[in-house]
Protein backbone atom coordinates (compact mmCIF):
# COMPACT_ATOMS: atom_id res chain seq x y z
CA UNK A 1 0.00 0.00 0.00
CA UNK A 2 1.11 3.54 -0.58
CA UNK A 3 2.55 5.79 2.06
CA UNK A 4 -0.35 8.14 1.68
CA UNK A 5 -2.94 5.47 2.35
CA UNK A 6 -1.08 4.15 5.36
CA UNK A 7 -0.82 7.61 6.80
CA UNK A 8 -4.44 8.34 6.24
CA UNK A 9 -5.50 5.10 7.87
CA UNK A 10 -3.23 5.62 10.82
CA UNK A 11 -4.26 9.17 11.33
CA UNK A 12 -7.92 8.43 11.03
CA UNK A 13 -7.72 5.66 13.56
CA UNK A 14 -5.89 7.90 15.99
CA UNK A 15 -8.40 10.68 15.67
CA UNK A 16 -11.42 8.44 15.64
CA UNK A 17 -12.39 10.03 12.35
CA UNK A 18 -14.14 8.25 9.54
CA UNK A 19 -12.47 4.99 8.67
CA UNK A 20 -10.83 4.82 5.25
CA UNK A 21 -12.64 2.91 2.56
CA UNK A 22 -10.11 0.11 2.29
CA UNK A 23 -10.26 -0.61 5.99
CA UNK A 24 -14.03 -0.64 5.85
CA UNK A 25 -13.97 -3.04 2.93
CA UNK A 26 -11.70 -5.40 4.84
CA UNK A 27 -13.98 -5.29 7.85
CA UNK A 28 -17.05 -5.95 5.69
CA UNK A 29 -15.31 -8.86 4.02
CA UNK A 30 -14.50 -10.31 7.44
CA UNK A 31 -18.08 -9.87 8.61
CA UNK A 32 -19.05 -11.68 5.44
CA UNK A 33 -16.71 -14.52 6.36
CA UNK A 34 -18.30 -14.75 9.80
CA UNK A 35 -21.71 -14.68 8.15
CA UNK A 36 -20.62 -17.48 5.85
CA UNK A 37 -19.45 -19.65 8.74
CA UNK A 38 -22.66 -18.76 10.57
CA UNK A 39 -24.72 -19.89 7.59
CA UNK A 40 -22.70 -23.07 7.44
CA UNK A 41 -23.40 -23.93 11.05
CA UNK A 42 -27.04 -22.86 10.78
CA UNK A 43 -27.54 -25.42 8.02
CA UNK A 44 -25.31 -27.98 9.73
CA UNK A 45 -28.07 -30.15 11.09
CA UNK A 46 -29.87 -30.86 7.81
CA UNK A 47 -26.48 -31.27 6.16
CA UNK A 48 -25.36 -33.72 8.84
CA UNK A 49 -28.56 -35.71 8.46
CA UNK A 50 -28.27 -35.80 4.71
CA UNK A 51 -24.64 -36.85 5.02
CA UNK A 52 -25.54 -39.69 7.40
CA UNK A 53 -28.36 -40.75 5.11
CA UNK A 54 -26.25 -40.84 2.00
CA UNK A 55 -23.15 -42.44 3.48
CA UNK A 56 -24.75 -44.64 6.12
CA UNK A 57 -22.65 -42.74 8.64
CA UNK A 58 -23.29 -43.90 12.20
CA UNK A 59 -25.24 -46.88 10.87
CA UNK A 60 -28.05 -44.84 9.33
CA UNK A 61 -30.15 -47.21 7.25
CA UNK A 62 -31.72 -46.50 3.89
CA UNK A 63 -35.38 -46.10 3.14
CA UNK A 64 -36.38 -47.98 0.05
CA UNK A 65 -38.44 -45.93 -2.39
CA UNK A 66 -40.30 -47.07 -5.50
CA UNK A 67 -37.31 -46.58 -7.74
CA UNK A 68 -35.09 -48.65 -5.49
CA UNK A 69 -37.62 -51.45 -5.22
CA UNK A 70 -38.07 -51.48 -8.97
CA UNK A 71 -34.35 -51.72 -9.43
CA UNK A 72 -34.21 -54.54 -6.92
CA UNK A 73 -36.32 -56.89 -9.03
CA UNK A 74 -33.50 -57.66 -11.39
CA UNK A 75 -31.14 -59.32 -8.90
CA UNK A 76 -34.01 -61.07 -7.17
CA UNK A 77 -35.05 -62.74 -10.40
CA UNK A 78 -31.55 -63.92 -10.96
CA UNK A 79 -31.87 -67.15 -9.01
CA UNK A 80 -28.17 -67.87 -9.05
CA UNK A 81 -27.35 -64.51 -7.53
CA UNK A 82 -30.18 -64.89 -5.06
CA UNK A 83 -28.92 -68.17 -3.81
CA UNK A 84 -25.38 -66.94 -3.73
CA UNK A 85 -25.32 -65.33 -0.32
CA UNK A 86 -27.07 -65.32 2.96
CA UNK A 87 -26.49 -62.95 5.78
CA UNK A 88 -27.63 -63.19 9.37
CA UNK A 89 -29.68 -60.24 10.52
CA UNK A 90 -29.76 -59.91 14.29
CA UNK A 91 -32.30 -57.87 16.19
CA UNK A 92 -31.63 -55.78 19.22
CA UNK A 93 -34.07 -53.74 21.29
CA UNK A 94 -33.48 -51.07 23.91
CA UNK A 95 -35.87 -49.05 25.99
CA UNK A 96 -34.93 -45.71 27.43
CA UNK A 97 -35.24 -45.60 31.22
CA UNK A 98 -37.86 -42.86 31.03
CA UNK A 99 -40.20 -45.00 28.96
CA UNK A 100 -42.02 -47.66 31.02
CA UNK A 101 -42.32 -50.14 28.19
CA UNK A 102 -40.99 -53.59 27.62
CA UNK A 103 -39.58 -53.84 24.16
CA UNK A 104 -37.98 -56.90 22.65
CA UNK A 105 -37.40 -58.53 19.32
CA UNK A 106 -39.76 -61.43 18.64
CA UNK A 107 -36.93 -63.26 16.86
CA UNK A 108 -33.27 -62.91 17.90
CA UNK A 109 -31.94 -63.41 14.42
CA UNK A 110 -32.99 -64.36 10.93
CA UNK A 111 -31.00 -65.92 8.18
CA UNK A 112 -31.76 -63.67 5.26
CA UNK A 113 -31.25 -64.19 1.59
CA UNK A 114 -29.59 -61.07 0.24
CA UNK A 115 -31.99 -59.11 -1.94
CA UNK A 116 -35.07 -60.74 -0.49
CA UNK A 117 -37.71 -58.76 1.35
CA UNK A 118 -38.02 -59.90 4.94
CA UNK A 119 -40.60 -59.25 7.63
CA UNK A 120 -39.49 -59.20 11.24
CA UNK A 121 -41.39 -58.34 14.38
CA UNK A 122 -40.68 -56.54 17.59
CA UNK A 123 -43.01 -56.57 20.53
CA UNK A 124 -43.68 -53.71 22.91
CA UNK A 125 -45.76 -53.65 26.07
CA UNK A 126 -46.78 -50.59 27.99
CA UNK A 127 -46.32 -51.55 31.65
CA UNK A 128 -47.50 -48.22 33.02
CA UNK A 129 -51.02 -47.06 33.73
CA UNK A 130 -50.82 -44.22 31.24
CA UNK A 131 -51.08 -44.01 27.51
CA UNK A 132 -47.67 -43.14 26.17
CA UNK A 133 -46.25 -42.13 22.82
CA UNK A 134 -42.90 -43.64 21.93
CA UNK A 135 -40.54 -43.09 19.05
CA UNK A 136 -37.72 -45.38 18.10
CA UNK A 137 -34.26 -44.48 16.91
CA UNK A 138 -32.37 -47.11 15.02
CA UNK A 139 -29.13 -48.03 13.40
CA UNK A 140 -27.34 -51.06 12.04
CA UNK A 141 -23.89 -52.32 12.83
CA UNK A 142 -21.33 -52.74 11.37
CA UNK A 143 -21.83 -49.20 10.12
CA UNK A 144 -20.43 -49.92 6.70
CA UNK A 145 -23.40 -52.20 5.92
CA UNK A 146 -25.86 -49.38 6.57
CA UNK A 147 -25.95 -48.13 2.99
CA UNK A 148 -27.07 -51.60 1.91
CA UNK A 149 -29.71 -52.04 4.56
CA UNK A 150 -33.02 -50.86 3.16
CA UNK A 151 -36.23 -50.52 5.11
CA UNK A 152 -39.41 -50.72 3.10
CA UNK A 153 -41.70 -50.19 6.06
CA UNK A 154 -40.97 -49.80 9.71
CA UNK A 155 -42.70 -48.93 12.95
CA UNK A 156 -39.84 -46.54 13.53
CA UNK A 157 -41.01 -44.26 10.73
CA UNK A 158 -43.91 -43.05 12.88
CA UNK A 159 -44.63 -42.54 16.53
CA UNK A 160 -46.21 -45.43 18.36
CA UNK A 161 -49.01 -45.12 20.91
CA UNK A 162 -49.58 -47.80 23.53
CA UNK A 163 -52.46 -47.79 25.99
CA UNK A 164 -51.90 -48.98 29.57
CA UNK A 165 -51.05 -52.66 29.51
CA UNK A 166 -51.34 -52.87 25.76
CA UNK A 167 -48.94 -55.10 23.84
CA UNK A 168 -48.31 -54.48 20.19
CA UNK A 169 -46.44 -56.35 17.51
CA UNK A 170 -44.35 -53.94 15.52
CA UNK A 171 -43.30 -55.00 12.06
CA UNK A 172 -40.32 -54.00 10.02
CA UNK A 173 -39.93 -54.97 6.37
CA UNK A 174 -36.48 -54.72 4.93
CA UNK A 175 -34.06 -56.17 2.46
CA UNK A 176 -30.30 -56.26 2.18
CA UNK A 177 -29.13 -54.76 -1.09
CA UNK A 178 -27.18 -57.21 -3.28
CA UNK A 179 -24.82 -54.32 -4.01
CA UNK A 180 -23.33 -55.19 -0.62
CA UNK A 181 -21.66 -58.19 -2.23
CA UNK A 182 -19.91 -55.93 -4.74
CA UNK A 183 -18.39 -53.69 -2.06
CA UNK A 184 -14.99 -54.96 -1.06
CA UNK A 185 -15.50 -53.69 2.49
CA UNK A 186 -18.79 -55.45 3.09
CA UNK A 187 -18.86 -58.54 0.92
CA UNK A 188 -17.52 -60.76 3.68
CA UNK A 189 -19.91 -59.61 6.35
CA UNK A 190 -21.75 -62.50 7.92
CA UNK A 191 -24.02 -60.66 10.31
CA UNK A 192 -25.78 -57.34 10.51
CA UNK A 193 -27.37 -56.15 13.74
CA UNK A 194 -30.47 -54.01 13.52
CA UNK A 195 -30.92 -52.10 16.73
CA UNK A 196 -33.76 -49.96 18.03
CA UNK A 197 -34.08 -47.74 21.05
CA UNK A 198 -37.52 -46.63 22.12
CA UNK A 199 -37.81 -43.22 23.77
CA UNK A 200 -40.77 -41.50 25.30
CA UNK A 201 -41.68 -38.93 22.68
CA UNK A 202 -41.14 -35.37 23.86
CA UNK A 203 -44.48 -34.60 22.21
CA UNK A 204 -47.10 -36.62 24.11
CA UNK A 205 -50.12 -34.93 22.51
CA UNK A 206 -50.80 -38.07 20.48
CA UNK A 207 -51.33 -39.94 23.75
CA UNK A 208 -54.09 -37.60 24.81
CA UNK A 209 -55.68 -37.88 21.43
CA UNK A 210 -55.46 -41.65 21.59
CA UNK A 211 -57.00 -41.66 25.05
CA UNK A 212 -59.78 -39.48 23.79
CA UNK A 213 -60.24 -41.62 20.71
CA UNK A 214 -60.31 -44.71 22.86
CA UNK A 215 -62.88 -43.35 25.25
CA UNK A 216 -64.86 -42.11 22.30
CA UNK A 217 -64.62 -45.54 20.77
CA UNK A 218 -65.70 -47.13 24.03
CA UNK A 219 -68.54 -44.70 24.20
CA UNK A 220 -69.48 -45.61 20.68
CA UNK A 221 -69.14 -49.29 21.56
CA UNK A 222 -71.33 -48.82 24.56
CA UNK A 223 -73.91 -46.86 22.58
CA UNK A 224 -73.85 -49.51 19.93
CA UNK A 225 -74.11 -52.21 22.54
CA UNK A 226 -77.05 -50.52 24.19
CA UNK A 227 -78.74 -50.11 20.86
CA UNK A 228 -78.12 -53.74 20.09
CA UNK A 229 -79.47 -54.78 23.43
CA UNK A 230 -82.56 -52.65 23.00
CA UNK A 231 -83.05 -54.13 19.59
CA UNK A 232 -82.60 -57.61 20.97
CA UNK A 233 -84.97 -57.00 23.81
CA UNK A 234 -87.46 -55.70 21.37
CA UNK A 235 -87.04 -58.85 19.30
CA UNK A 236 -87.10 -61.01 22.36
CA UNK A 237 -90.53 -59.84 23.13
CA UNK A 238 -91.55 -61.12 19.73
CA UNK A 239 -89.60 -64.31 19.78
CA UNK A 240 -89.04 -66.11 23.07
CA UNK A 241 -86.58 -68.41 21.38
CA UNK A 242 -84.08 -65.56 21.22
CA UNK A 243 -84.19 -64.68 24.89
CA UNK A 244 -81.93 -67.49 25.90
CA UNK A 245 -79.30 -66.37 23.43
CA UNK A 246 -79.27 -62.83 24.77
CA UNK A 247 -79.12 -63.83 28.35
CA UNK A 248 -76.39 -66.34 27.60
Amino acid at each position, binding site marked *: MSNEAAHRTARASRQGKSTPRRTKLTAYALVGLIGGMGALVATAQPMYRAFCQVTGF*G*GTTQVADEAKLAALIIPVEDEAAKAARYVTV*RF*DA*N*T*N*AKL*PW*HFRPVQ*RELRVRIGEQVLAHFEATNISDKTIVGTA*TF*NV*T*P*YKTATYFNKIDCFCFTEQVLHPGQTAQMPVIFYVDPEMLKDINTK*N*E*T*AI*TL*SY*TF*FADTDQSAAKKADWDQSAAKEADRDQGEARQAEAERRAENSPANRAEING
Partner: protein
Amino acid sequence: MNRCRWMLTSLLFISAWLAASAGALAAGPKPWQMNFQEAATPVMEDIISFHNLLLVIEILIVLFVLGLMLVIIIKFNSKANPVPSKTTHNTLLEVVWTVVPIAILMVIAVPSMKLLFFMDKAKNPEMTLKITGHQWFWTYQYPDNGDFEFDSNIVDEEDLPKGGKRLLEVDERVVLPVNTEIRLLMTSDDVIHNWAVPSFGVKMDTVPGRTNESWIKVTKTGTFYGQCSELCGVNHGFMPIRVDVVTKAEFAKWAAAAKVKYAGIQTPPKTAASATAKAIKVAQAAARMPGAHVLKR
Protein backbone atom coordinates in the same frame (compact mmCIF):
# COMPACT_ATOMS: atom_id res chain seq x y z
CA MET B 1 17.82 -51.51 5.49
CA ASN B 2 20.33 -51.20 8.27
CA ARG B 3 18.22 -48.63 10.01
CA CYS B 4 15.23 -50.91 9.72
CA ARG B 5 17.08 -53.78 11.31
CA TRP B 6 18.33 -51.55 14.06
CA MET B 7 14.83 -50.36 14.72
CA LEU B 8 13.58 -53.94 14.83
CA THR B 9 16.26 -54.89 17.30
CA SER B 10 15.46 -52.07 19.63
CA LEU B 11 11.81 -52.83 19.20
CA LEU B 12 12.38 -56.41 20.28
CA PHE B 13 14.44 -55.21 23.18
CA ILE B 14 11.74 -52.87 24.33
CA SER B 15 9.01 -55.48 23.95
CA ALA B 16 11.08 -57.87 26.00
CA TRP B 17 11.53 -55.23 28.65
CA LEU B 18 7.86 -54.44 28.61
CA ALA B 19 6.93 -58.09 28.85
CA ALA B 20 9.37 -58.70 31.67
CA SER B 21 8.14 -55.77 33.69
CA ALA B 22 4.47 -56.40 33.14
CA GLY B 23 4.22 -58.94 35.96
CA ALA B 24 1.66 -61.65 36.63
CA LEU B 25 -1.27 -62.57 34.45
CA ALA B 26 -3.70 -59.79 33.75
CA ALA B 27 -5.17 -58.40 36.89
CA GLY B 28 -5.56 -54.69 36.45
CA PRO B 29 -2.99 -51.97 37.03
CA LYS B 30 0.10 -52.47 39.22
CA PRO B 31 1.73 -49.97 41.56
CA TRP B 32 4.30 -47.77 39.79
CA GLN B 33 3.36 -49.33 36.46
CA MET B 34 4.92 -47.45 33.54
CA ASN B 35 3.40 -49.29 30.62
CA PHE B 36 0.33 -51.07 29.35
CA GLN B 37 -1.63 -53.65 31.28
CA GLU B 38 -0.88 -57.11 29.95
CA ALA B 39 -2.50 -57.89 26.62
CA ALA B 40 -5.16 -60.59 26.64
CA THR B 41 -6.50 -60.21 23.11
CA PRO B 42 -4.84 -60.20 19.68
CA VAL B 43 -5.97 -56.58 19.25
CA MET B 44 -4.18 -55.44 22.40
CA GLU B 45 -1.09 -57.40 21.42
CA ASP B 46 -1.04 -55.55 18.11
CA ILE B 47 -1.66 -52.21 19.82
CA ILE B 48 1.33 -52.83 22.07
CA SER B 49 3.65 -53.89 19.29
CA PHE B 50 2.64 -50.93 17.11
CA HIS B 51 3.04 -48.62 20.07
CA ASN B 52 6.53 -50.00 20.63
CA LEU B 53 7.43 -48.93 17.10
CA LEU B 54 5.94 -45.48 17.75
CA LEU B 55 7.78 -45.21 21.04
CA VAL B 56 11.13 -45.95 19.43
CA ILE B 57 10.56 -43.41 16.67
CA GLU B 58 9.33 -40.78 19.09
CA ILE B 59 12.15 -41.26 21.58
CA LEU B 60 14.63 -40.94 18.71
CA ILE B 61 12.98 -37.70 17.57
CA VAL B 62 13.09 -36.24 21.07
CA LEU B 63 16.69 -37.34 21.59
CA PHE B 64 17.66 -35.89 18.20
CA VAL B 65 16.15 -32.50 19.07
CA LEU B 66 17.65 -32.63 22.55
CA GLY B 67 21.04 -33.48 21.11
CA LEU B 68 20.90 -30.55 18.68
CA MET B 69 19.92 -28.26 21.53
CA LEU B 70 22.84 -29.46 23.65
CA VAL B 71 25.23 -28.81 20.76
CA ILE B 72 23.71 -25.35 20.36
CA ILE B 73 24.09 -24.64 24.08
CA ILE B 74 27.72 -25.74 24.09
CA LYS B 75 28.92 -24.39 20.76
CA PHE B 76 26.78 -21.34 20.09
CA ASN B 77 26.57 -19.51 23.38
CA SER B 78 27.78 -15.94 23.30
CA LYS B 79 31.10 -16.83 24.98
CA ALA B 80 32.00 -19.68 22.68
CA ASN B 81 30.77 -17.95 19.54
CA PRO B 82 30.85 -14.15 19.91
CA VAL B 83 30.13 -13.42 16.25
CA PRO B 84 26.82 -14.83 15.04
CA SER B 85 26.58 -16.17 11.51
CA LYS B 86 24.07 -14.55 9.19
CA THR B 87 22.85 -17.69 7.46
CA THR B 88 19.11 -17.64 7.00
CA HIS B 89 18.70 -20.11 4.19
CA ASN B 90 19.74 -23.52 3.10
CA THR B 91 17.42 -24.98 0.53
CA LEU B 92 18.76 -28.50 0.80
CA LEU B 93 18.35 -28.50 4.56
CA GLU B 94 14.81 -27.17 4.31
CA VAL B 95 13.87 -29.85 1.79
CA VAL B 96 15.41 -32.54 3.98
CA TRP B 97 13.53 -31.56 7.09
CA THR B 98 10.30 -31.58 5.15
CA VAL B 99 10.86 -34.86 3.35
CA VAL B 100 12.31 -36.90 6.21
CA PRO B 101 9.30 -36.36 8.49
CA ILE B 102 7.03 -37.37 5.61
CA ALA B 103 9.04 -40.56 5.23
CA ILE B 104 8.82 -41.25 8.96
CA LEU B 105 5.07 -40.70 8.86
CA MET B 106 4.76 -43.19 6.04
CA VAL B 107 6.70 -45.74 8.10
CA ILE B 108 4.12 -45.14 10.83
CA ALA B 109 1.07 -45.03 8.60
CA VAL B 110 1.41 -48.52 7.13
CA PRO B 111 1.29 -50.54 10.38
CA SER B 112 -1.21 -48.02 11.74
CA MET B 113 -3.67 -48.77 8.95
CA LYS B 114 -3.07 -52.49 9.29
CA LEU B 115 -3.91 -52.33 12.98
CA LEU B 116 -6.93 -50.15 12.38
CA PHE B 117 -8.45 -52.45 9.80
CA PHE B 118 -7.63 -55.53 11.84
CA MET B 119 -9.38 -54.26 14.95
CA ASP B 120 -12.37 -53.04 12.98
CA LYS B 121 -14.35 -56.22 12.66
CA ALA B 122 -14.49 -59.72 13.98
CA LYS B 123 -14.48 -62.35 11.27
CA ASN B 124 -17.23 -64.53 12.60
CA PRO B 125 -18.31 -63.89 16.18
CA GLU B 126 -19.67 -66.90 18.00
CA MET B 127 -21.64 -65.01 20.62
CA THR B 128 -22.79 -61.55 21.57
CA LEU B 129 -22.46 -59.56 24.75
CA LYS B 130 -24.75 -56.60 24.97
CA ILE B 131 -23.57 -53.78 27.21
CA THR B 132 -25.77 -50.92 28.35
CA GLY B 133 -24.36 -47.99 30.29
CA HIS B 134 -26.39 -46.31 33.00
CA GLN B 135 -25.72 -43.58 35.54
CA TRP B 136 -23.75 -45.25 37.15
CA PHE B 137 -23.62 -48.98 36.52
CA TRP B 138 -23.56 -51.41 33.62
CA THR B 139 -26.19 -53.83 32.39
CA TYR B 140 -25.01 -56.93 30.58
CA GLN B 141 -27.17 -59.07 28.37
CA TYR B 142 -26.34 -62.44 26.83
CA PRO B 143 -28.77 -62.74 23.91
CA ASP B 144 -27.17 -65.92 22.52
CA ASN B 145 -26.73 -67.81 25.78
CA GLY B 146 -30.23 -67.82 27.18
CA ASP B 147 -31.10 -64.16 26.78
CA PHE B 148 -30.63 -63.23 30.43
CA GLU B 149 -29.42 -59.91 31.70
CA PHE B 150 -28.12 -58.45 34.94
CA ASP B 151 -26.83 -55.21 36.43
CA SER B 152 -23.24 -54.85 37.55
CA ASN B 153 -22.61 -52.40 40.39
CA ILE B 154 -19.49 -51.30 42.19
CA VAL B 155 -18.74 -53.03 45.50
CA ASP B 156 -18.65 -50.57 48.36
CA GLU B 157 -15.34 -50.21 50.14
CA GLU B 158 -16.67 -51.70 53.38
CA ASP B 159 -18.07 -54.74 51.57
CA LEU B 160 -14.86 -55.41 49.70
CA PRO B 161 -13.70 -59.03 49.99
CA LYS B 162 -10.16 -59.66 51.19
CA GLY B 163 -7.72 -58.81 48.41
CA GLY B 164 -10.45 -57.13 46.42
CA LYS B 165 -9.44 -54.10 44.42
CA ARG B 166 -11.00 -50.87 45.62
CA LEU B 167 -13.04 -49.08 42.94
CA LEU B 168 -12.62 -52.01 40.55
CA GLU B 169 -14.68 -54.82 42.08
CA VAL B 170 -18.30 -55.32 41.06
CA ASP B 171 -21.15 -57.35 42.54
CA GLU B 172 -22.13 -59.20 39.37
CA ARG B 173 -19.21 -59.93 37.06
CA VAL B 174 -19.19 -60.42 33.35
CA VAL B 175 -18.16 -63.97 32.58
CA LEU B 176 -16.88 -64.78 29.12
CA PRO B 177 -15.38 -67.85 27.47
CA VAL B 178 -11.73 -67.89 26.45
CA ASN B 179 -10.63 -68.15 22.80
CA THR B 180 -14.02 -67.16 21.51
CA GLU B 181 -14.79 -64.33 19.16
CA ILE B 182 -17.34 -62.22 20.94
CA ARG B 183 -19.36 -59.43 19.41
CA LEU B 184 -19.84 -56.49 21.78
CA LEU B 185 -22.92 -54.35 21.27
CA MET B 186 -22.97 -51.18 23.28
CA THR B 187 -25.56 -48.57 23.99
CA SER B 188 -26.56 -46.29 26.81
CA ASP B 189 -29.68 -45.52 28.70
CA ASP B 190 -28.95 -41.91 29.64
CA VAL B 191 -25.69 -40.09 28.92
CA ILE B 192 -22.63 -41.17 26.99
CA HIS B 193 -20.46 -43.69 28.83
CA ASN B 194 -17.52 -45.65 27.55
CA TRP B 195 -16.88 -49.34 28.13
CA ALA B 196 -13.16 -49.93 28.36
CA VAL B 197 -11.00 -52.85 29.45
CA PRO B 198 -7.32 -51.99 28.93
CA SER B 199 -6.11 -55.59 28.65
CA PHE B 200 -8.61 -56.25 25.84
CA GLY B 201 -7.70 -53.15 23.85
CA VAL B 202 -11.36 -52.30 23.70
CA LYS B 203 -12.77 -48.87 24.40
CA MET B 204 -16.00 -47.71 22.90
CA ASP B 205 -18.55 -45.04 23.66
CA THR B 206 -22.01 -46.14 24.67
CA VAL B 207 -24.27 -43.57 23.08
CA PRO B 208 -27.98 -43.26 23.85
CA GLY B 209 -30.13 -43.92 20.81
CA ARG B 210 -27.54 -45.81 18.86
CA THR B 211 -25.74 -49.11 19.07
CA ASN B 212 -22.01 -49.47 18.62
CA GLU B 213 -20.26 -52.68 17.75
CA SER B 214 -16.84 -53.94 18.70
CA TRP B 215 -15.31 -57.33 19.28
CA ILE B 216 -12.90 -59.21 21.50
CA LYS B 217 -11.25 -62.58 21.51
CA VAL B 218 -9.65 -63.15 24.88
CA THR B 219 -6.81 -65.63 24.70
CA LYS B 220 -6.08 -65.92 28.42
CA THR B 221 -8.24 -66.95 31.30
CA GLY B 222 -8.18 -64.68 34.29
CA THR B 223 -9.67 -61.57 35.77
CA PHE B 224 -9.70 -58.27 33.92
CA TYR B 225 -10.67 -54.83 35.07
CA GLY B 226 -11.75 -51.62 33.41
CA GLN B 227 -13.45 -48.34 34.20
CA CYS B 228 -15.94 -46.05 32.53
CA SER B 229 -13.93 -43.86 30.18
CA GLU B 230 -16.23 -40.97 29.32
CA LEU B 231 -17.28 -38.34 31.84
CA CYS B 232 -20.85 -39.32 32.68
CA GLY B 233 -21.74 -37.28 35.73
CA VAL B 234 -21.34 -37.34 39.49
CA ASN B 235 -20.30 -40.98 39.92
CA HIS B 236 -18.30 -41.32 36.72
CA GLY B 237 -15.34 -42.71 38.66
CA PHE B 238 -17.43 -45.37 40.32
CA MET B 239 -18.78 -47.65 37.63
CA PRO B 240 -16.04 -50.24 37.15
CA ILE B 241 -15.95 -53.23 34.86
CA ARG B 242 -14.82 -56.69 35.88
CA VAL B 243 -14.60 -59.51 33.38
CA ASP B 244 -13.83 -63.08 34.40
CA VAL B 245 -12.59 -65.09 31.46
CA VAL B 246 -13.04 -68.85 31.92
CA THR B 247 -12.76 -71.97 29.80
CA LYS B 248 -15.55 -72.71 27.36
CA ALA B 249 -16.84 -75.57 29.50
CA GLU B 250 -16.91 -73.45 32.62
CA PHE B 251 -18.66 -70.73 30.68
CA ALA B 252 -21.35 -73.10 29.48
CA LYS B 253 -21.95 -74.18 33.06
CA TRP B 254 -22.03 -70.61 34.28
CA ALA B 255 -24.41 -69.54 31.52
CA ALA B 256 -26.81 -72.35 32.31
CA ALA B 257 -26.83 -71.39 35.98
CA ALA B 258 -27.03 -67.70 35.19
CA LYS B 259 -30.06 -68.23 33.00
CA VAL B 260 -31.89 -69.58 36.03
CA LYS B 261 -30.40 -67.09 38.47
CA TYR B 262 -31.25 -64.02 36.46
CA ALA B 263 -34.48 -65.34 34.96
CA GLY B 264 -37.37 -63.00 35.40
CA ILE B 265 -35.20 -60.15 36.52
CA GLN B 266 -36.65 -57.15 34.85
CA THR B 267 -34.33 -54.26 34.79
CA PRO B 268 -36.69 -51.31 35.14
CA PRO B 269 -37.13 -49.96 37.80
CA LYS B 270 -33.40 -49.62 37.82
CA THR B 271 -31.33 -48.97 40.87
CA ALA B 272 -27.89 -47.47 40.99
CA ALA B 273 -25.15 -48.43 43.36
CA SER B 274 -23.99 -46.22 46.11
CA ALA B 275 -20.39 -45.33 45.50
CA THR B 276 -18.29 -46.78 48.25
CA ALA B 277 -18.17 -45.06 51.61
CA LYS B 278 -19.08 -41.70 50.25
CA ALA B 279 -22.70 -42.61 49.73
CA ILE B 280 -24.05 -39.78 51.82
CA LYS B 281 -21.92 -37.16 50.18
CA VAL B 282 -22.80 -38.48 46.79
CA ALA B 283 -26.43 -38.36 47.68
CA GLN B 284 -25.97 -34.74 48.54
CA ALA B 285 -24.36 -34.13 45.21
CA ALA B 286 -27.14 -35.97 43.49
CA ALA B 287 -29.72 -34.02 45.42
CA ARG B 288 -28.29 -30.90 43.90
CA MET B 289 -28.86 -32.44 40.51
CA PRO B 290 -32.39 -33.76 40.58
CA GLY B 291 -32.17 -34.87 36.95
CA ALA B 292 -29.59 -37.47 37.75
CA HIS B 293 -31.38 -40.47 39.13
CA VAL B 294 -29.19 -42.14 41.66
CA LEU B 295 -29.08 -43.96 44.92
CA LYS B 296 -32.28 -45.73 45.56
CA ARG B 297 -30.65 -48.45 47.57
